[in-house]
């Protein structure tokens, strides 16, 4: 795989911000995740070359943390909160419905790359539980019966 030039530039820019600092791998990976929405293979190779850290070690970090993804994320990110408050208010039923409708399990992306479904452990807006967030838009106090309608409104 040949890494594109502008991708290299972006990765280099990210790494250069941390010049001279110790222990920057996690911070670099978070920035990469934000830039590309996931952490592609060729980018890992570039980070390895630049930071002189073995690819295996970068993989280990990137696969350990929830905020990093080694697979591409869909156009719309659907997050269903299963924090304790949402759990006791019926969050699992919302997730069940979303899984059933999108025909994927939490953590996966639909084949057409339209939706990525995630279960998250508390979004800090417990008053709105159960809550589903799509691309940063909150759908709170959500009855199961409305899940379908909401998901269908995204294209």
């Amino acid at each position, binding site marked *: 795989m040949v890494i594109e030039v502008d991708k290299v530039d972006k990765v280099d820019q990210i790494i250069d911000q941390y010049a001279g600092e*110790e*222990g*920057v*791998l*996690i*911070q670099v*990976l*978070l920035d990469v995740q934000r830039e590309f929405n996931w952490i592609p293979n060729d980018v890992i190779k570039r980070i390895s070359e630049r930071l002189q850290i073995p690819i295996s070690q970068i993989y*280990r*970090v990137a696969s*350990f*943390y*929830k*905020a*990093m993804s080694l697979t591409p994320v869909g156009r719309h990110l659907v997050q269903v909160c*299963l*924090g*304790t*408050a949402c*759990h*006791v*208010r*019926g969050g699992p*039923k919302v997730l*069940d*419905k979303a899984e*059933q409708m999108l025909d994927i399990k939490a953590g996966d992306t639909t084949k057409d790359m339209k939706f990525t479904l995630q279960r*998250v*452990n*508390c*979004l*800090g*807006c*417990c*008053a*709105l*539980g159960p*809550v589903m967030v799509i691309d940063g838009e*909150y759908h*709170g106090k959500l*009855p*199961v*019966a409305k*899940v*379908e309608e909401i998901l269908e409104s995204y294209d």
Partner: protein
Amino acid sequence: MARLNSTSDLEELRQGILSQRDPTKPCITICSGTGCHAYGSENVAAAFRTEIEHQGLAEQIDIRRTGCHGFCERGTLVVIFPEEICYCNVQPKDVAEVVAQTARGNVVERLLYTDAATGEKVVHEHEIPFYKYQTRLVLGNNTKLDPKSIDDYLALGGYSALAKALLQMTPEQVLEEVKKANLRGRGGGGFPAGRKWETSRNAPDEIKYVIVNADEGDPGAYMDRSLMEGNPHSVLEGLVIAGYAIGSHEGYIYVRQEYPLAVENVTMAIRQAEEYGLLGEDILGSGFDFKIKVHRGAGAFVSGESSALMTAIEGRVGEPRPKYIRTAIKGIWDRPSNLNNVETWANVPLIINHGADWFSSIGTEGSKGTKIFSLVGKVNNTGLVEVPMGLTLKEIIYNIGGGIPKGKRFKAVQTGGPSGGCIPESLIDTPVDFDQLTKLGSMMGSGGMIVMDEDTCMVDVAKYFLDFLADESCGKCVPCREGIKRMLEILTDITEGRGKEGDIELLEELAEVIRDVSLCALGATAPNPVLSTLRYFRDEYEAHIAEKRCPAYVCKALVSYYIEPDKCQACMICLRNCPAEAISGTKNQIHVIDQSKCTKCGTCFDVCPPRFGAVKRLSGEPVPAAPTAKERVLARSK
């Protein structure tokens, strides 16, 4: 911006800021905490800006966006200073009226809080029961300042504790004051902060670190987030004071990437403090240097554990290590590292300003000061509450929280997050402090308080926490990695109707091993949710195992929904709302649930009009046969 080189510089700046502010001028504050943000407070704030401009009132009315006010249930919250008139559930459409009436000095009645008990409108924030019973020492300033403005913090007396510590006290005196105040860590275990500081201080290395743990990962808890987002300078001030007491010149703030606003606000706060010389070299002319770096955490619950967090700061995978030598002595890069959570740090300036005697006059014998809880779940007033240690669970849940919604019965309250436990109704008069909660088999933790009603299955709750922990276990040690998984398998079997005799005993045995031999606190406390529910709700476990019955009708595999033919009025409501299209019927035909299609979501039960009450939940008994086609014809009595 001029650097401050002495206490008098600081006071002069403060007076300068205050002299430009008219305390009688109306100021509209809009809560922009996470809860209100989710309600759309952005749009409300934008509407206020436009409307004030539009009505030509920019000179007469100030506007301020603040951090979390706490009363999340009623967001978007708007408070008008100086009277502190509190408006609830404010929408953009209400804004024009609020602006116009505020300019005339009037109150918009319809947006006021209505006391559920008396039916009366409550004008002022502090008179609302939710706030009235609180003591908001740490959280209180959230409503009064814009977290992005250091001047707002200074106007409220900010950084005076830092000046006092650096210029009037020796490091030993600061340490003694915190020890005397008996400030215990607000992040979980409640270890005395002063003693931890002393350990780091006495460790021989020249280079030491102080760290803010803002990796709040407990599901259902957002106290630290609200402080970091709403009043970041109070945390910085506490951290610098501790640096001075400990002899550390470098601080870290470990904050979750999932809290972008906290990252943004604290980063900005650091820059502002540096510009004023409240951070950096020779702070306030004292000769003390201190700098702070922000490190973003990447979403791993275990990384909130002290040794794991420090490993993550070093740039490696955030896993714990054995702590034969404590992190206070060998932490980041093997140097003494003192870690406390956000709320603990925010208490430090208060102690320095008001003294240890004042601080220890609040609270109980063993637990001093206040504690912030996120009161969530099946409770009327969801929100952040700060109360003196020693208030009872009942006072918190009923007086502040307003009790249980929809007239349901209180069943239990879960405290301490995944490391904590469930406390039953019979113990609701327990005063809340570190030691009391531990005695009940739960713990204070960071302050999550999740209220559960009769519709909550305690076996399911235990399973929920184990599921969370199995997912979050880093896998480094066997008892935690394998043990939690095995316990989860047993619980899954129990909740899915495959429970068998001996399961409870096996759970208890596994729990003991996991507790005793896990590497870190995640594993050591992981069995708590199971043990505490077994202790208080053993009968629920037994019902699941012996009768295949879920008393709360939660565990899907053990529950069925059934429409009682003699009660059904064929109103079509359940039929139309069923997300699985499992209900058949027409306007004149009694409805029937196709059990093979039913996903047991409970929607039909929720929407069936109470005057019919035709949908019945069954557990531990067979579903009666559906009525025949002839029996399904509804004879309407008209």
